[in-house]
Structures are given as structure tokens and as C-alpha cells.
């Protein structure tokens, strides 16, 4: 990481701390903001958060490692999550997964070479009556067919 990048990230994190406060209870919301923008929370970002909240960096890492939506390793620019829970499973989630894997040439849990997509399973997205469901970043899509799912990925930048 270049110094300029580091400084920019530090400033960004400081702005989140100003927004949510210096209390430990602000931690998860701050991590959310970093995750949303950078798709991961780097070691440097973890240290900065820890410094500003006056806690040990390992405390920050321990929270990141607990939650499914936070990660310290980089992922693709767009995160595709396919609901694997039984209602969506019965409506044909396997078809979606196979079509997406074929189209992108990667398996669940992997990232495309151009770093555009990471595909993952998600546990119940709460869209059981309109499954199979899939989320691309924070948007959700319902009643998908394999064809529709692949078409949606084509529209993502």
C-alpha cells in the first residue's frame, strides 16, 4: 500500500468514527462502512479502527472473523450470494448455482480472475415465498431462473 493510499484510508476511517462515535458500540457500523466501500477490511484498516477506538487490533479482527458479511481478505468487486436454505433449494437453487458457475468459470466460494465477481452461498435471505433468491451486493433478486440469473450478472459493471 502506498503512503497516499494509507493516508486516504485513515482519513476515511476517521470520518466514520466521527459519524458513529468513539465508543466500542460503534465498531460494527464502522466496519460495515469500510466493508461496503472496499469489499474487505484490510489489516491496515483494522489497525486504524483499533487505534481510533482505543482497543487492541485483535479485538477488531475477532469481530470480523465472527460475522459472515465481514472479511479481511479481498474479494471480487461484486459479491453474489445465492440462498441455499431449503425453500430456495426446493425451488431450484442448484440450477442457478450450476448456471452461474458455468458462465463465470469458477466454483462457489471463488473469485473470477478479473476480480469482478465472488460467488458464495448465503443462509436464508428471508425471501422464501419468492425463491429462488440471490443477492448481488445489497440488491436482492427473486423468482430467478438460471437464465435470468446469468442475465442479471451480465448487467453488473
Amino acid at each position: 500500500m502506498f503512503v497516499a493510499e494509507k493516508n486516504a484510508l485513515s482519513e476515511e476511517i476517521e470520518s466514520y468514527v466521527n459519524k458513529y462515535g468513539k465508543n466500542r458500540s460503534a465498531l460494527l457500523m464502522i466496519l460495515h462502512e469500510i466493508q461496503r466501500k472496499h469489499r474487505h477490511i484490510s489489516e491496515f484498516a483494522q489497525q486504524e479502527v483499533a487505534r481510533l477506538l482505543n482497543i487492541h487490533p485483535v479485538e477488531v479482527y475477532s469481530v470480523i472473523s465472527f460475522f459472515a458479511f465481514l472479511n479481511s481478505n479481498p474479494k471480487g468487486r461484486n459479491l453474489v450470494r445465492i440462498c441455499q436454505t431449503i425453500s430456495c433449494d426446493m425451488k431450484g437453487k442448484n440450477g442457478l448455482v450450476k448456471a452461474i458457475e458455468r458462465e463465470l468459470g469458477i466454483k462457489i466460494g471463488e473469485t473470477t480472475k478479473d476480480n469482478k465477481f465472488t460467488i458464495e452461498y448465503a443462509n436464508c435471505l428471508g425471501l422464501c415465498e419468492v425463491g429462488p433468491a440471490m443477492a448481488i451486493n445489497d440488491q436482492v433478486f427473486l423468482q430467478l431462473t438460471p437464465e435470468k440469473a446469468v442475465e442479471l450478472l451480465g448487467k453488473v459493471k
Partner: protein
Amino acid sequence: MEVLKKKRTGPVIFSEYKRGNAIKKAVSMSREDILFELKDSKLKGRGGAGFPVSTKWMLTSAAKSEDKFLVCNADEGEPGTFKDRVLLMEYPELVFDGMVVGGYTLGAKKGIVYLRGEYEYMLKLLEDYLGEMRKDNLLGDNILGKQDYNFDIEIFLGSGAYVCGEETALIESLEGHRGEPRNRPPYPINTGFLGRPTSVNNVETLAAVTHIVVKGGSWFAKLGTDKSTGSKLFSVSGDCEKPGVYELPWGTKISELLKIVEAKDTKAVQVGGASGFCIPKSQFDKKLAYEHVSTGGSVMIFNESRDMLHVLKNFMEFFVDESCGQCTPCRIGNVKLLEGVEMIEKGEYTFAQINKLKDLGRTMQLASKCGLGQSSPNPFISILENFNDEIFNAANGGRNGK
């Protein structure tokens, strides 16, 4: 996601309501009067555990503290549950007015909505709605002109952890820690968020409170059964013509519900989500109520073509994924139960092993620290027992014969 506004009807939750009415009524009442109305209504928590709301609120309002908190538990993670999504997207007035009434009753100045990370797309919508409420003085200082009645609501985003639906895990995560459940007691009503008295209530509970304040506790108690008053939102999914959210009085039979949603050739109904029980055809005349088949509202329907072992495997994979790993019975137990399902799948098991695993399940129900591990063996035990013919004996030996 576009808001799919459906015209919904129901006796309580989906009945007529105008934004702000409950708050107007509440400020004209004393706190005790509201608690008495709730007591008359016999409203129980709608998240699934069914703790009486009036008791929880009485204890929290009686607790002496400078700061108190009301937390709305919108971490709806139970597979097959989506009623809170519908309430928050289509009826935010019910939930938020219920919170403001709660704040008044408890003497809390701050309400927190713990919204699950999967529902992040609602965040903007809900923030805007809260902004409108602030403009109309339904939130903020001296609400509707009532002196010293200050209350505001903040939305906190969860991050994809099922266990955070458990109230103490939820509070841990609010405080910026790993979402691992605490030992209870002490309960959050004494030692909750930041060590202050905190009432954690389900989204649907708060929506029911809103109606009870306006229409009275005895009006609410007329519906349902003696021990389970009022109505319940059921999230119906799986093999039926009309999946969706239905409001039905407590005491509705499973067979009646199946008729309403036009389910055909039904073999089994999983009530209460992955952590609930699997009910076979022979027991469809059972009633949905706290004293019969208790549920947080998830109803998943399986028709004759479904492989129940596959269903069970899906549930156990879910629990292995979502166990927080803090206590041993849950962390290791769920993995062992999943291994058992895989053994059956391959036909490499002995009945002695299966019986041992059922015993392990019963141990987990007793020894796990929180509701996750205490209830995760439910599908394992209920599916293997209720569908033992299909799994072990059909076609001369079930999977053994395959």
C-alpha cells in the same frame, strides 16, 4: 427491491391503522394503564419463545436506571421466516409506533432496531421513514407536546449471523463484540445493552402492541385460544400454490392452514423453521398455538415428492454453519449430527449409532448455552422419528436397499 404493496387483510396486525394514533392514545394514558392493557391482552413474545410482554415490560419499567433501552429484534434469520420483512417494508408505522409507545411505557429514551444484514436494502427506506416521523414530532423531544417524553430510534445493521437473533448475542453485537450469547441470568431487563435495563422485542410483538394500545387488551384477547391470545403472522413457503404471509388466529389447525394456502399432496410441514419440528401427515389436526405446536411463524411445506433426509441435511448444514462455536455441545454436536445424516445418506450406519446420535441430540437440548444448540437437534430427532419408514424401511430397507 421494489415494494410489492399487496392488499393484506387480517383481524389484528393487518387491520386498519393510521400512523401516530397509538402514540396519541399512549400520551393520554399513564404508563401503568398501558401495562394493564397489555396484561389484559395476554400478548406473548412473537419471536418464538413466547414470554409475556406485560411481564417483560413491567420488570424493565420498574428497573431503576438513568438509561434504559428498547431494542426491536429485526434479526429475522430463522429459515422460512419473512414476516418481519413484510412488516418493515409495508407496515413500518406499526413497528415504529409500537416502539415509541414502548419507550414511553418503559421510560427509555432510545430505541434501537437491530436489522439483519441481509435486509440492508431496506435501510434507506426505514431511515427516510424515521425522518418523516421526526418532522411530525412522533419522534424526538416532547413527543406530541407531552412534556419530557423524549424518544428516538436508531437503526443498527447486523452482519449475517443467525445467532444474533438470540437477545444476549444481539446485545453483545450491539456493543461491538462477537455475537456470542451470554449466560442468563442476569437477563437483559436488568443488565442489557451497556449494562442498562433493556427490553428486546420482536418486530411483530411491537406491531401488536400498537393495535392493543388503540383498541384495548380485551379486544385482542377475544381472538385465539385461552393461552395464546390474538393472531399470528405465518410465513408460508414450500410446496403450495399461494406462499406468503398470512395472519391467522392462534388455534388454527395445520390442516386448515394447508387448505388456505392451497397445498396439495402434502407429506410434512416443518413448523418453527429449521429449529422447529417436522409434523407428519398423521398429525395435521394439531393446532398452532403456544400450548400445542409453538412457533415463531415459519411454516415450510413439503409434498410427497420431497426427500426428507435431504431436507434434514439442509437444516443440519445450516446449524453447523451458524453455530457460534462458544459452547461445546452445539459446536461439536451439530457436526456429529450432520455426519450422522451423511452416514444414512451413504447407507453406512448402524441403528446403534443412530440411537447414540439421538441421545447426543437430547444432551444438546439440555446442555447448550443458548436456544440455538438447544433447538438444533429438533429437526434431527423429529424427522428421523416421524419419517423413519421412509428413511430406514421403505422398499425393503430404505436407503440401505438403494
